């Protein structure tokens, strides 16, 4: 479970970017992370959750990961997907893709 402020949500680690072990050695593109390590990962949540980046608003950017009754990891959010500039909802983009195929 992903716990942040008052929210809890199911989540999955979708990608691991890099890990740092307790000696300070950093491995980029690591395949796995084990207990005691620090890691930069991408998480995917089951539903959308109101959040912020840790630097801009700390209380909305901190979270805890728990499973099977224990705390697996603690973390802070470093990056979110950029705000959509063209303001097009996702479904419109899908439609656009099909239009492109047609043209």
């Amino acid at each position, binding site marked *: 479970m992903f716990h942040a402020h008052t929210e809890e949500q199911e989540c999955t680690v979708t990608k691991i970017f890099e890990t740092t072990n307790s000696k300070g050695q950093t491995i980029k593109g690591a395949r796995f992370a084990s207990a005691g390590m620090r890691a930069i990962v991408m998480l995917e949540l089951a539903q959308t959750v109101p959040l912020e980046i840790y630097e801009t608003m700390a209380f909305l950017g901190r979270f805890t990961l728990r499973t*099977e009754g224990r705390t697996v990891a603690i973390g802070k959010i470093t990056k979110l997907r950029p705000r959509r500039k063209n303001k097009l909802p996702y479904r419109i983009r899908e439609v656009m893709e099909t239009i492109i195929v047609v043209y």
Partner: protein
Amino acid sequence: MLNDPDSLTKHPEVEALLEATAADDYTMEQEEIPNDADAALAFETQKISVSESPVQDMEQDEEDEPAAPVVVKTGDPREHLNLVFIGHIDAGKSTLTGNILYLTDIVDKRTIERYEKEAKERNRESWSLAFIMDTNEEERAKGKTVEVGKAYFETMDKRYTILDAPGHGIYVPNMIQGACQADVGLLVISARKGEFEAGFERGGQSREHAMLAKTLGVSFLVVVVNKMDEPTVQWKKERFDEIVTKLRPFLKSCGFVIKREVKFIPISGFGGANIKEEVSSSVCPWWKDCYTNGDNNTTTPTLIELLDSLEIKGRDPKAPLRVPILDRCSDRGTIAMGKVESGILRPGQKVIIMPTKKKYKIDEVWVNEDSVDGARPGENVLIKINGARLEDIRKGYVMCTDPPCRAVDKLICQIAIADLPDNAVMTAGFSMHVPRAHGGARVHGHQDL
């Protein structure tokens, strides 16, 4: 072409689609009420000076009345702090909170006597103070807290809300909910021989709670070394020092800056020494030297003085409003419960609920059951929301003003891995689910009856 959506608007089909969805697009009107008190005042006087200029010769008295400064009644001017009591099971969290309430005259002597009698009937005299916090039957029968207890007390300088978290391992989700509201964590450690060790070794809740407290955002951690009056401890300096030296490296690894954020204090939760009144020097001769020298980061003799001396930073009343919602209920309209994290919440304000992006108006705001004109960061509030149905508000939603916070389902983050189940490793695809007693079921086929 996908990267340049503007070029697409040339096509009529796309334009039609865009127009059809334009209503869904979210735009926020200019906030009518300025966010902070000073701006509100300036805004108000500016409005008046504009209206006054053409009618200068009219009766001055009537014009003066609205020009009076807008007094913002934000309830009690004293600062408000949320305290969360955390620690291993049977460390004495509920007893300590009970005693604080008793010593600050929130609970009177008669009630205590009644609880004492009740505890005696159960042959557990030492639980009498815990009964103040543990109100339901199950909690009293077993002598352990299940739900996060809430209580309120005040001193000359500050107002406090106590959140008494359960210590048992299986109630950690309850504890997380309690701690996410808190500004100050009080880690209660039992000094009794064997109990400190049990709470601190792998799997002990002292460890887990301290780590959770940091990530849930407490600014200060007060390590309360409890049960100093125990026969196995007898206010010995050696025992206190031993606990402090063992905790220091661990708290540091949790991310606490020991010098600034962590305070250590020895107390007796049941006897009441060092809570409001300093322990007598005949019992504990070393404590006076300890705090006057500022050893262990503590310069105040008692717990309540220590709490009064804490200054919480990072509360910004000028930032956009953020109120994570803790719960909701229905009472002639929808009422949401939460803590103001930043910004000022006022009745009449327009807010956005994330992640649904719905806009509502605030009807009324209560702090401790008093209706107020504004709630500053740190206050626990009840909010009456105009036009919202009960289903529109849920735990985990965040109430915002412009610019609203983000609603996301993907994020990149930095994590520190503490413990993995069955010594596994974390790989891509590692998922964390709701703990369930039963597995899911799947229908494989059906039969006509």
